[in-house]
């Protein structure tokens, strides 16, 4: 931690609460613009309900298009939180401290957004209740538990509930800081949420032990969520390109790749927007880029394994699909763009420390990864369906309508708006984690060198 600057707890409070207790000049403008786009999107959703799914480009045989692609994309982004927060907490990685809260919030808001997409995609949204809840006592028809389309909301619901509780527990000490620094109604609000937190050894011990316990419990859920999302496709025998045995780990590693990249994007924006240069430092981007290099390489391995396994069986329809995906226009262009943005451009960039510690380059390379990861999901979902197959007599391919493109754009506005609203009420960087880091850091003289050190308590 060479770039660390020793700061007081008072300074930490004043800087990291500048977005919560004060309002940055750009905040109201950005929130107003985003609110406008979000409201237009909600309006379009009602228009779609009125006119039906005919306003989209969905048609036989492509029933799953941009909406489902974007659903999988946002579930993927949600894997940032637990990957960063739980794994780094369990391994006691020091550089996790400024990143964890942002990653957890990103998890929650991207899951909320992901959950909206099947509702939009369903057309008659209200009918989803029959699909999800065992409530139709009159007719005795229950949800089909054998379907991954039922397992999916259960897994995402579990992940969303768990992540929200995980975030809340870690927020309690910071809520006490806000309680101590506000007046009037806001003080009342934070007083209720802080539940009388005082910061005695018992409460701190529960924060530390509880954080590790919840991390350990959330990790298996994290792995299961995208595995189950992958089964939405993998258990469908009739669609080439979907019926793959390695889809579960392939989806999980892809989700980590896109999720951690999204955290990089978000950290850069937080540093620029709120000026938290003393807390979100180039060394944090450096550490995230190293992690991403490993994750991206593993993900590329799975991408080629998936391709290899599909060709190895010498199944004619499968080979035809791959030929279309890789060599036929326009899919070949998308495939090339996907490989370039998902791996070929960003990963070699990250091999250089100058890039890893350059925040602007990290920002743009992380955006690039997520363009690639969105395309990956699109290339998995759509070509498999749009291929000519027996007994399908409408061989039209799929062109998303402007409705669908707008709803995709809406989802980004929606997540950003939620993050900005959150930042006005709660701190985006965990204050107590930063303060703890100060308590546990020092420097040790070894020979003539002054070495910055971090102490770690021995677990009993």
């Amino acid at each position, binding site marked *: 931690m060479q770039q660390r600057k020793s700061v007081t707890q008072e300074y930490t409070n004043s800087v990291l609460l500048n977005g919560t207790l004060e309002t940055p000049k750009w905040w109201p403008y950005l929130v107003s613009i985003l609110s406008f786009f979000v409201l237009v999107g909600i309006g379009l959703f009602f228009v779609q309900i009125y006119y039906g799914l005919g306003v989209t480009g969905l048609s036989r045989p492509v029933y799953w298009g941009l909406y489902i692609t974007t659903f999988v994309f946002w579930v993927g982004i949600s894997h940032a939180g637990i990957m960063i927060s739980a794994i780094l907490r369990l391994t006691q990685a020091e550089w996790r401290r400024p990143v964890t809260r942002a990653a957890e919030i990103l998890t929650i808001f991207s899951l909320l957004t992901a959950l909206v997409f099947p509702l939009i995609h369903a057309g008659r949204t209200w009918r989803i209740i029959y699909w999800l809840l065992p409530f139709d006592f009159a007719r005795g028809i229950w949800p089909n538990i054998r379907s991954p389309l039922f397992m999916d909301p259960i*897994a995402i619901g579990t992940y969303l509930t768990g992540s929200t509780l995980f975030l809340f527990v870690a927020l309690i000490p910071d809520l006490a800081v806000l309680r101590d620094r506000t007046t009037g109604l806001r003080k009342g609000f934070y007083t209720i949420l802080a539940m009388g937190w005082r910061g005695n050894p018992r409460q701190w011990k529960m924060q530390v032990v509880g954080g590790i316990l919840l991390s350990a419990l959330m990790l298996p859920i994290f792995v299961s969520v995208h595995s189950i999302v992958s089964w939405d496709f993998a258990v469908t025998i009739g669609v080439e390109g979907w019926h793959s045995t390695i889809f579960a780990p392939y989806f999980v590693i892809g989700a980590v790749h896109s999720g951690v990249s999204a955290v990089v994007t978000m950290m850069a924006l937080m540093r620029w927007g709120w000026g938290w240069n003393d807390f979100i430092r180039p060394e944090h981007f450096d550490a995230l880029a190293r992690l991403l290099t490993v994750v991206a390489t593993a993900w590329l391995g799975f991408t080629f394994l998936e391709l290899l396994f599909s060709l190895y069986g010498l199944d004619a329809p499968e080979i035809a699909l791959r030929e279309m995906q890789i060599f036929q226009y326009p899919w070949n262009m998308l495939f090339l763009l996907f490989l370039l943005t998902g791996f070929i451009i960003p990963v070699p960039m990250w091999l250089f420390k100058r890039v890893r510690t350059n925040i602007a380059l990290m920002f743009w390379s992380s955006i690039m990864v997520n363009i690639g990861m969105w395309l990956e999901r699109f290339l998995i979902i759509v070509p498999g369906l749009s291929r000519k197959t027996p007994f399908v007599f409408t061989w039209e391919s799929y062109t998303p309508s402007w409705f669908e493109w707008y709803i995709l754009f809406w989802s980004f506005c929606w997540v950003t708006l939620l993050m900005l609203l959150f930042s006005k009420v709660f701190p985006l960087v965990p204050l*107590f984690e930063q303060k703890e880091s100060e308590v546990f850091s020092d420097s040790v003289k070894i020979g003539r060198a002054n070495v910055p050190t971090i102490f770690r308590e021995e677990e009993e």
Partner: protein
Amino acid sequence: MSKSILGLFLDPNSAADAMDGLKESGFEQGSFDVLTGTPYPEGAFGEHVPQHRLFRFPAFGAIIGFSASLFLTSATQLAYPLITGGKPILSIFAMLIIMYEMTMLSAVIFSVIGIIFESRLPNIHPSAYDPRITEGYIGVVISVEDKDLNKAKAVFEKTGSEEVKVV
């Protein structure tokens, strides 16, 4: 009548001295506590190391979640016994996935209940406190009878307390 006294310290060593002083003056270990704005290493102030039973909560939650999910997945299938492809009514592998998720969900919910309970929250009647604790000050708080008030105050003053508050 019992009163709550809070001594505020800037230096962790002085706060630790105050804790030692209170012990030496004959106050019971459970009657005083240290309040900080950040976690310090366990035993840094010579405080009583708290014991907890947090790990029982997720285990209990997991049992409840597993039982509820077993009931839900099997009962809904048995209530509408539609034989598909000559396969058994109860689809064990599909049930296991739902049961896994619900077991984990319940374990997480009970863990959070456990964390809140073991932190002794919500704390509706908090004793002496000062907002400066979340700004870096270290508070040593003790509940005493009127007769022991001066004895406790003397300990705080002797160990270099920045301020002593009586509530």
